[in-house]
């Protein structure tokens, strides 16, 4: 909201420079975002931003009240109409049929307006606050709204049927034409102002087209009321109609300002509109009272919360300056007696006493002692509260082991040349199978854009997006990972589950070409290597693999890695269909590692293992075998036959074609024999090695070749 300092001067004496006042207000919680100087007419404007608990600042009078409090100044009141010696308008009635929605409604009938020119000062002040002048009566209602914060509504009295004002819920199927010409269907929970015939205003939100003031209006019915904040808010949101009025009503207006605002407007209309006749005020209902009218505040509460001793006299002064009614108590003495100097500190605090603080109608936000402590701190100045560091209790600060693992994985993968991505948890259904992927996914009912309806059940489409984006930007290789949650909706409507997951996607080249090395494309086994290394770094042993299928993987070539039979990771080559959809020319290899499951088998503190002190002997096994035989089975077989003498079996060559028969492959294993107990001699090894070879021939029909 814009505040004109010229206008403020009607209520409080401002000691320039204005920038200083703006800073004082900001540091008291009434934030002045901008301070701007106008010429013609000369003025300084404050652009203020209020917090939702302080609607009493939404007017010049309210801001002036705050300035008076922080600067310790006196506050003048606006000039009001005395409202005496008038007679009620004959035949006019107000019926509140929904007291919860409108506890208090008042009105005045003003007849025979003779002047229509809005005085310049009103036009200028409205303009300074970004409101255009329309006509005298509307300008005055807007002026009063900006001045004292009470929204008013002026009806053309001749357009009100039956001289009757009803405040009621809409009738079944009732429609209403808003001032801007739009017709809306009223909701049963809305609140309308109606005459004997039809709705003439959406209470507190907007007037109706049918009863709008126009340039021919001579007779005006002026409304000033209190509407229930929650009801106004619901109506305003439901119909997507908001106004300066609804903005204030939904934050709650000061019930006392209902009368003040009306009297202020009547005074201005009388002065500038020169009406022939003004009626007495007609009213219905009662002004709502504060739920908490006074608060008991103890001195030590202030000290305990703030960590600074504010003098009791200063506390009382601050609260008084804020317009609160302060009554001091001292225990063990008569009111007003202070005995600060002769007592021990422990009794001193008690003796410093307490206060009963009466709350004015414009501060419904003050209901508890803590609310008063905040007020004291605000005016005392946050900058005057010292800075201290709390003593640290002798408690250990553990670290969530999964977070340590995540950090380790981040360092490992980034060190290996992968870049960490952060992508949105919300995804569209593009590339995902409605059955296999989305059946148990968590849906969002109010997505913002692009059909981002799903809490992702997999990162695959998110990472494909990143690859595509970079390829389009000219990158030939994209190697990325992300650590975040995937989400799933368990059957039976239970609360959704979230699983921390590390996803890896590889595209393009493993190594770039240099003057020393050739380039090489990434393969599935590069990805598998990363995954295996991550599992190893977590201290996972006893792994096995199994083939799996996923909707987004190519039919062959996807597998799952299990640790102690728990699947902890899966990886595969992204299907051609998806590559086409994402317009990618090279294959994409994709893996997910469940960090939650990995944690179950992770070794947090690795235990030292002694390595064998006796020399090792290496022997190779180069063999030809049918394609259908799996290398892992052969390795397990070799290890199993080793009579405890094999430390390691590794595959160092895989070869097809040329001298290898069709349908077969040549595998070369290196077997490292080593005993933890003795030095092996060639004969020991030879015996075992030959036995293994024979067993492989019998069991897997391998043939040996070569030298």
């Amino acid at each position: 909201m814009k505040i004109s300092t010229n206008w403020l001067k009607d209520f409080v004496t401002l000691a320039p420079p204005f920038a200083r006042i703006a800073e004082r207000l900001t540091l008291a919680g009434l934030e002045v975002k901008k301070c701007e100087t106008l010429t013609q007419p000369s003025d300084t404007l404050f652009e203020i931003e209020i917090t939702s608990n302080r609607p009493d600042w939404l007017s010049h009078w309210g801001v002036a009240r705050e300035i008076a409090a922080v600067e310790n100044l006196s506050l003048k009141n606006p000039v009001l109409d005395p409202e005496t010696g008038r007679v009620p308008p004959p035949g006019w009635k107000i019926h509140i049929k929904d007291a919860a929605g409108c506890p208090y409604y008042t009105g005045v009938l003003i007849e025979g307006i003779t002047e229509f020119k809005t005085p310049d000062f009103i036009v200028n002040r409205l303009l300074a606050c970004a409101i255009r002048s329309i006509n005298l009566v509307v300008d005055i209602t807007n002026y009063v709204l900006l001045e004292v914060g009470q929204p008013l509504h002026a009806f053309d009295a001749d357009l009100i049927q039956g001289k009757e004002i009803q405040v009621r819920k809409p009738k079944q199927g009732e429609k209403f034409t808003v001032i801007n010409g739009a017709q809306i269907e009223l909701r049963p929970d809305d609140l309308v102002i109606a005459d004997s015939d039809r709705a003439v205003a959406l209470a507190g939100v907007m007037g109706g087209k049918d009863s709008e003031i126009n340039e021919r209006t001579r007779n005006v019915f002026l409304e000033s009321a209190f509407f229930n904040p929650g009801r106004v808010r619901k109506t305003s949101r439901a119909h997507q109609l908001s106004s300066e009025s609804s903005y204030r009503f939904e934050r709650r207006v000061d019930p006392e300002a209902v009368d003040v605002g009306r009297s202020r407007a009547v005074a201005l209309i009388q002065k500038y509109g020169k009406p022939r006749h003004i009626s007495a005020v007609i009213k219905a209902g009662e002004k709502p009272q504060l739920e908490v009218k006074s608060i008991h505040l103890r001195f030590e509460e202030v000290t305990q919360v703030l960590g600074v001793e504010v003098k009791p006299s200063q506390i009382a002064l601050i609260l008084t300056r804020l317009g609160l009614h302060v009554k001091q108590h001292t225990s063990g003495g008569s009111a007003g007696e202070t005995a600060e100097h002769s007592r021990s500190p422990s009794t001193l605090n008690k003796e410093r006493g307490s206060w009963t603080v009466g709350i004015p109608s414009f501060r419904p936000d003050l209901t508890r002692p803590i609310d008063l402590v905040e007020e004291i701190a605000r005016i005392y100045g946050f900058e005057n509260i010292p800075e201290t560091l709390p003593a640290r209790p002798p408690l250990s600060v553990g670290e969530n082991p999964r977070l340590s693992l995540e950090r380790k994985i981040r360092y490992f993968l980034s060190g290996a040349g992968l870049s960490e991505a952060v992508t949105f948890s919300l995804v569209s259904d593009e590339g995902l199978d409605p059955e296999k992927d989305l059946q148990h996914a968590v849906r969002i009912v109010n997505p913002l854009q692009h059909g981002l309806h799903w809490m992702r059940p997999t990162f695959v489409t998110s990472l494909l997006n990143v690859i595509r984006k970079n390829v389009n930007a000219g990158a030939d290789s994209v190697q990325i990972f992300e650590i975040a949650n995937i989400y799933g909706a368990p059957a039976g409507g239970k609360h959704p589950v979230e699983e921390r997951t590390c996803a890896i996607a590889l595209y393009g080249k493993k190594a770039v070409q240099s003057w020393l090395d050739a380039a090489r494309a990434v393969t599935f086994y590069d990805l598998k290597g990363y995954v295996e290394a991550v599992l190893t770094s977590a201290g996972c042993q006893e792994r096995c693999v199994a083939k799996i299928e996923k909707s987004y993987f190519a039919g062959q070539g996807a597998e799952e890695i299990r640790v102690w039979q728990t699947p902890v990771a899966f990886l595969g080559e992204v299907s051609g269909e998806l590559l086409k959809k994402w317009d990618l020319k090279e294959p994409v290899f994709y893996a997910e590692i469940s960090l939650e499951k990995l944690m179950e088998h992770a070794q947090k503190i690795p235990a030292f293992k002694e390595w064998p002190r006796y020399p090792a002997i290496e022997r190779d096994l180069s063999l030809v075998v049918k394609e259908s035989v799996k290398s892992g089975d052969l390795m397990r077989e070799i290890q199993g036959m080793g009579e405890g003498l094999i430390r390691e079996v590794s595959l160092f060559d895989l070869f097809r074609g040329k001298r290898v028969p069709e349908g077969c492959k040549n595998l070369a294993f290196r077997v490292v024999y080593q005993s933890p107990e003795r030095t092996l001699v060639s004969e020991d090894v030879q015996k075992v090695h030959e036995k293994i070879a024979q067993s492989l021939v019998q069991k897997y029909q391998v043939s040996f070749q070569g030298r």
Partner: protein
Amino acid sequence: MNDQISRLENEAREDLARADSAEKIESFRVAYLGKKGKLTELFKLLGTVPPEEKKAVGAELNRLKQWLEEAVEKGKGNAPRTDASREIFDETLPGIRPPQGSIHILQQTIQEISAIFHRMGFETVEGPEIETEFHNFTALNIPLDHPSRDAFDTFYTPQGQLLRSQTSTVQIRVMKDRKPPLRIIAPGRVYRPDTVDASHSFMFHQIEGLMVDSGATFSDLKGVLHLFLRELFGSQTKIRFRPHFFPFTEPSVEVDIQWGKGWLEILGAGSVDPNVFDEVGYDKAVTRGFAFGLGVERIAMLRHGINDIRHFYENDLRFLRQFA
């Protein structure tokens, strides 16, 4: 002929054993494989071999040649470096860089901020992103139908769960779970249906902090946050504490840091509202504490001069690698 071949082989083995430097390996190579080398000479004699033996002798010569070549190659690798072997050294050849990856700047920022708080005895905790109305609103003293909820628009699931709009949900869970004293920070993703532009995103990262202790005061809050901001932005950092409103703290404060000529809001904080202690079952009469919340993106943007929040989620490698 075969005799000659095996003699040459034995001779070569002896010579090779003595070739213990790169220069000697090179002279060995010239002696055997050079244009007038011993093996080259033997190859010239191949024409004199009777045709029926030619194939076998040829194969044998080739075997020897291959062995010699491998031996030379191997010898070169094993030979100790001497200054002479550096003759071909070109100091301007570029180094072969290891592959360079990167940790996302948001993660780096979270780690850095967390480390500062860890030093002050705060522990990192986590909570779910899909939450209940209770943890996101009710327990945080945010009334269901009130303008104070305007700032906290939320995404909903069909079952009425929601995506947390702030990481303050985690403090509720931790307080319901544990007894004071507490010092925690909770980093994580939060969601608000904001239209995406240069400074808004519907998903972003927050770090929530909470300290609960019977003696915690507002002056402690000031001390902890000022120390934190000094550690993050440098010891010269000027800050100011400005009263504000949050439903879950009272007194509430916004902290600004001086940035150029003006002030920039950097975080929100306050003493925990007694209603929140009530909701989690702490005795509000004796429990005190303070909480703070900060936006990771905002801090990263300020520190690194990043001008558009969308960079964080687009993951252009040209962006990511700048923070390697």
